[in-house]
């Protein structure tokens, strides 16, 4: 290599000359656009708000743990658990409707700003909404007769949406929350009467709170739980009586705790023994809630950890036994979800902010198998018959399709999608299967 430092010394000036064009004349247009846009609330940036001091300071001294007592208690619990497993494990799994295995109906998705449906073999693709606005986050009710979705005024109305419910064919649409600002993780009650979700209020945008809305619009959305506590990613239990969510204190670096409360917001109980620095893998706005009730309502999956290393845990929903890890590794494991029968779990694994790979494992985390790579962050969706998982490939690669992966044959059914992907519009890349009764 010839040593000629002259050019390098002049590189900053040469680059300036090479790149300088006319004075930008679009300053006013970008400022008009930003003036019309609300800033994202601070709670969306929980990890970024941590200071280097908080991250690097040594941990506070920990009280001496009575290991012998804990060991004896653990042995007793283990014996009880083994006994219970031996008893329950031989029983046929019967889950009350609308949970357990079911017939797979259509799959709903967002195509070119509207809600579309298609059969699981990719046929019969059609739009079920045609009204103004950009749609997102389609979610069928548990009985498959209705569908909830978001409507944004435009692709630039980031975070600002209304939440609507319509019949499964898109007819009879009605707005049930006109102010679904930065909504996250909506879930239907088993009887279809309620929708539970987290959102920040436009009048209180710093706060994430849990809301319950009547799905027929008969009453306005109601904040439930401690109004002074931050809460995200709420999910209703299969029996419809409780809500699991992450409670956290933004002033404390490690304070995410899996919590359950009654549907009316009372009797909040911290389930995870540990409090975590981060949840949700790549970000709440992409629909990675990190909380999933087992179909029988006895256990809860969740992903949590630090910004750079999250694991998937399972915990007893009654709060009797502490959480235990079922998927771990040097990368982030998150977005875990149960199969309809509860016999398997699916989860994402990948580096922070990188596009993850999809894994499927037995319910205890064993027999992990990689199913797909380089995906969008939306939580993988099981078909009600447990044969197929729907994923969305990394939108940056512009593949423009949803993939329905047959777990037995690895066969992929692609469903084309079009439209602008906006990374801050919750639900732009989400998919929901319609659940129909078994014949």
């Amino acid at each position, binding site marked *: 290599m010839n040593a*000629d430092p002259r050019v390098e010394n002049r590189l900053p000036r*040469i680059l300036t000359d*090479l790149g300088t*064009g006319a004075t*930008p004349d679009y300053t006013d247009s970008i400022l008009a656009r930003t003036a019309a846009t609300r800033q994202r609330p601070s709670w969306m940036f929980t990890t970024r708000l941590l200071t*280097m001091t908080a991250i690097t300071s040594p941990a506070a001294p920990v009280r001496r743990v009575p290991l012998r007592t804990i060991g004896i208690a653990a042995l007793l619990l283990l014996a009880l658990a083994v006994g219970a497993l031996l008893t329950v494990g031989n029983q046929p799994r019967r889950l009350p409707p609308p949970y357990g295995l079911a017939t797979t109906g259509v799959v709903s998705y967002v195509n070119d700003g509207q809600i579309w449906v298609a059969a699981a073999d990719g046929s019969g693709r059609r739009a079920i909404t045609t009204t103004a606005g950009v749609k997102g986050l389609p979610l069928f009710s548990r009985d498959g007769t209705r569908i909830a979705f978001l409507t944004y005024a435009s692709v630039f109305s980031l975070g600002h949406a209304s939440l609507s419910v319509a019949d499964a064919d898109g007819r009879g649409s009605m707005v049930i929350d006109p102010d679904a600002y930065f909504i996250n993780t909506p879930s239907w009650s088993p009887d279809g009467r309620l929708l539970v979700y987290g959102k920040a209020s436009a009048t209180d945008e710093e706060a994430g709170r849990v809301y319950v809305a009547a799905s027929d619009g008969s009453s306005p959305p109601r904040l439930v739980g401690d109004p002074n506590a931050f809460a995200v990613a709420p999910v209703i239990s299969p029996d419809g009586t409780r809500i699991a969510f992450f409670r956290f204190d933004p002033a404390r670096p490690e304070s995410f705790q899996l919590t359950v409360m009654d549907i009316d917001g009372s009797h909040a109980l911290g389930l995870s023994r540990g409090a975590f620095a981060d949840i949700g893998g790549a970000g709440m706005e992409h629909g990675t809630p990190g909380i999933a009730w087992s179909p029988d309502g006895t256990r809860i999956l969740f992903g949590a950890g630090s910004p750079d290393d999250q694991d998937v845990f399972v915990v007893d929903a009654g709060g009797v036994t502490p959480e235990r890890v079922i998927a771990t590794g040097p990368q982030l494991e998150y977005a875990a979800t149960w199969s309809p029968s509860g016999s398997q779990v699916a989860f994402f694994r990948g580096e922070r902010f990188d596009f993850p790979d999809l894994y499927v494992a037995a319910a205890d985390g064993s027999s992990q198998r990689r199913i797909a790579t380089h995906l969008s962050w939306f939580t993988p969706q099981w078909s009600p018959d447990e044969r197929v998982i729907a994923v969305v490939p990394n939108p*940056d690669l512009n593949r423009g399709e949803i993939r329905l992966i047959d777990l037995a044959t690895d066969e992929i059914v692609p469903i084309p999608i079009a439209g602008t992907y906006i990374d801050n519009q919750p639900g732009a890349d989400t998919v929901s299967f319609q659940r129909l009764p078994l014949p």
Partner: protein
Amino acid sequence: MDQRRLVDQARQGDHDAFAELVRGSIARLDTAARLILRDGELARDAVQDGLFRAWRDLRGLREPDRFDAWIYRLTVNACLDIARRRRRRPIEVEIVEITELLAPSLPDPSDEVADRILVDGVMRRLDERGRSIIVLHYFVGLPLSEVASCLDLPLGTVKSRLSRALAEMRIDAHEPVPLPAFASGGSAS
């Protein structure tokens, strides 16, 4: 008003303060984007996208003193997103013609022009990520460790790609280069 105060005000939702920050930085952001994308129209899209994200996500900026580095990071990432999504589109090169750069006041025009031809040729051959490394280090003034973080590349990869580009420019990569003032300090969010 100093930049730190403007950033603090903008983080509180003061759009006038943000507008002042934008007016003070948009010309250099536009230059950086043009160097990476080699297309004035795409560069405008990238700058708009970067500044939009800056306003939207300003409350997530952990270190307000690093605002400059942060908006370059957002703009460069917007450039790379646009490059990925529009790779099939024909490139419309709007880079200034080399002959137009031959100013009479330059001390040694032949050397200046030769250098620019050399740099321009190397930049043409690099992909957008390679050009981003050059731009972030030599134009924006970020240390290589921060360039690596910004582009989500291992530091070794950044160094080797920079070294190859510099070799093409017949430059000794070990020669230190004076960097713009804000290059020192911690990392941006």
